[in-house]
């Protein structure tokens, strides 16, 4: 006991000393002149770690393509990543760590809206373009000129869900199920608005807390409400999976149009047959366009896995950032910003990018159907007016 204690203390002291002598956090990163560097904040630990892996894969594939095509400004492009631990303070620290490296010219932010909210003040201070994937509509309305969204925001997903359900499926009595987190509440709010405009009624608006172990009360409430169609915003796939199974077990057969998570790979694996014949609005659908097909091919070639929206948006972000920097002809943040805002008709994996003055690049969604576990493209609904 005595010796182990001493050994431990000694090694602890060594570790502490190393930390003190070489505080890597305070040392500014040396400027590497040979590459154009882009920072990326992504979850490597915590509940979002899964999504983080997909995001990184998408970005890496784009990076390779960019560099194969000659890089940016004649130099290879490089990706610098930091873990946001799936928490807000983690995201702020990760971003500010990246932002303290002056040679990073642009950033890829988070797919989570709250993390982007948390980072927003630092983004404003840093004054460099940040491509992000969070879908809370408010983010691009903050008046922060450096935020560029690479996924369609929730006002579009809600409009697409409402449009598809009321026009195509011809169902007017809705049950809305949503997570009570930022993503779920803002989605549900937008869906309620969109349904109101299209003359449908909301029979049930039911929130749930993430990581619920049981949805029986929710399913029974749907059954009792008499709704003939379900619209949903689920954040985590395991919640979605439990809900889907209990929905079918308790005999609810109403059609179900869900937000993107209903068609992602993990959800399909977890829920299996319970999700057959559901509809999802997907920002990424492999059959929706040539660009999407090409991305799918490239992704499968590298990852041996079907791609989904968590990788497609980072793919687009890296591709479009490279394009904008090349168009700007320099790495000056203002010039890159102008170049991003000028992008029109860029065919990305997620759809056609037309940036508006808020920084929203996409304005529509794909509707896809789960056909016995295969995701089949149904139609694209786009609200962009040039």
């Amino acid at each position, binding site marked *: 006991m005595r010796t182990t204690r001493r050994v431990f203390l000694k090694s602890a002291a060594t570790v502490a000393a190393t930390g003190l002598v070489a505080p890597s956090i305070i040392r500014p990163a040396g400027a590497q002149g040979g590459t154009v560097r882009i920072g990326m904040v992504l979850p490597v630990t915590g509940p979002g770690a899964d999504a983080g892996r997909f995001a990184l894969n998408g970005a890496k594939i784009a990076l390779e393509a960019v560099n194969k095509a000659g890089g940016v400004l004649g130099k290879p492009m490089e990706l610098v990543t930091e873990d946001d631990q799936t928490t807000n303070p983690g995201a702020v620290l990760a971003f500010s760590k990246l932002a303290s490296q002056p040679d990073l010219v642009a950033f890829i932010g988070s797919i989570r809206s709250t993390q982007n909210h948390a980072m927003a003040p630092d983004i404003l201070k840093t004054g460099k373009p940040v491509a992000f994937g969070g879908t809370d509509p408010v983010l691009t309305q903050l008046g922060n000129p450096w935020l560029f969204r690479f996924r369609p925001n929730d006002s579009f997903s809600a409009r697409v869900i409402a449009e598809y359900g009321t026009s195509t499926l011809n169902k007017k009595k809705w049950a809305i199920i949503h997570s009570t987190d930022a993503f779920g509440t803002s989605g549900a709010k937008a869906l309620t608005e969109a349904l109101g405009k299209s003359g449908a009624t909301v029979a049930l608006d039911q929130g749930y807390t993430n990581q619920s172990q049981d949805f*029986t*009360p929710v399913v029974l409430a749907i059954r009792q409400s008499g709704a003939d169609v379900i619209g949903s915003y689920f954040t985590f796939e395991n919640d979605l999976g439990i809900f889907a199974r209990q929905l079918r077990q308790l005999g609810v057969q109403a059609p179900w149009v869900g937000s993107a998570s209903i068609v992602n790979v993990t959800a399909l694996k977890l829920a299996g047959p319970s999700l057959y014949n559901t509809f999802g609005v997907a920002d990424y659908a492999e059959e929706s366009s040539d660009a999407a097909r090409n991305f799918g091919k490239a992704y499968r070639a590298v990852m041996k896995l079907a791609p989904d929206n968590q990788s497609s948006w980072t793919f687009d972000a890296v591709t479009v950032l490279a394009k904008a920097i090349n168009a700007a002809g320099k790495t000056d943040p203002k010039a890159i910003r102008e170049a991003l805002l000028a992008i029109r008709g860029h065919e990305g994996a997620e759809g056609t990018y037309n940036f508006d003055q808020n920084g929203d690049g996409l304005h529509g969604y794909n509707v896809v159907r789960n056909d016995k576990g295969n995701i089949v493209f149904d139609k694209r609904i786009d609200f962009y007016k040039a």
Partner: protein
Amino acid sequence: MDLILQLLFTGIGIGAVYALVALGFVLIFRATNVVNFAQGEFSMVAAFLMVVFAVDLQWPYWLSFLIAIGGMAVLGALFNLGVYYPLRHRTYLPVIISTIGASIFLANTTLALYGPQPQVLPPVFETQGFLVGPVFLDTQYLLIIAVTAVLVAFQYWFFEHTLIGKKLQATSQDKEMAALLGIPVAGMIMLTFVYSAVLGGIAGILVAPVLFVSIQMGATIALKAFAATIIGGFGDVTGAIIGGLALGIIETFGAAYISVPYKDAFAFIVLVAFLALRPQGIFGERIAEKA
């Protein structure tokens, strides 16, 4: 009426899960006077072991189960040696922190080894369930309820009717006295940890087909099970079972008739009410420190 029956079944099913995890809490608490904050991680690790052997390696279910349970026994022993034993003479606080550290360690080691993807463990039975009148009975929940009942019966028999069970009881009641009587106290505590880890493991394997296998699966259940333990009283196995079932039922009905988003609050509101009105739990010993 069918609504109420359906909710009742679900409540009992969820409650049985809490009860199973609560059993592990109570055993360790009785033997060491310490709450093991890593109890939920036992469930998580066992579920992942099952995924590795039964799903990834496609080994037979029963063999995978035996390996997973064996693995849990080893983990329980290592846990005792590394996390509890060095601190056995200290107050409960450092031990709590140590078990919290262990829970962070186990969760993230699993993450590092297996990656973050949630996994599926197929249920034991092919049929998902069947309808009895208007009520749908999920076979996996039926299995959970049955196993919980069997384990409770086993535990009763073990503690009341075997010598080793009585020695365990003696140890938990008075360690010094037990030592004077020649009972190997350290061995008994080791046995408790091994058995608790196995219990937690069984709980994890049973709920895996229902709740899926993820790094976070243990933490939420454990917190609820902890609440169940308090409602039932720390001193008593029966109390833990009833506390677990009560909590499952209250939660399910609360969600159905009061609020879904506040579902998790019911457990804690009931708990606080219990502590205020009946601090000794349903069955348990006195809480307020003795004069």
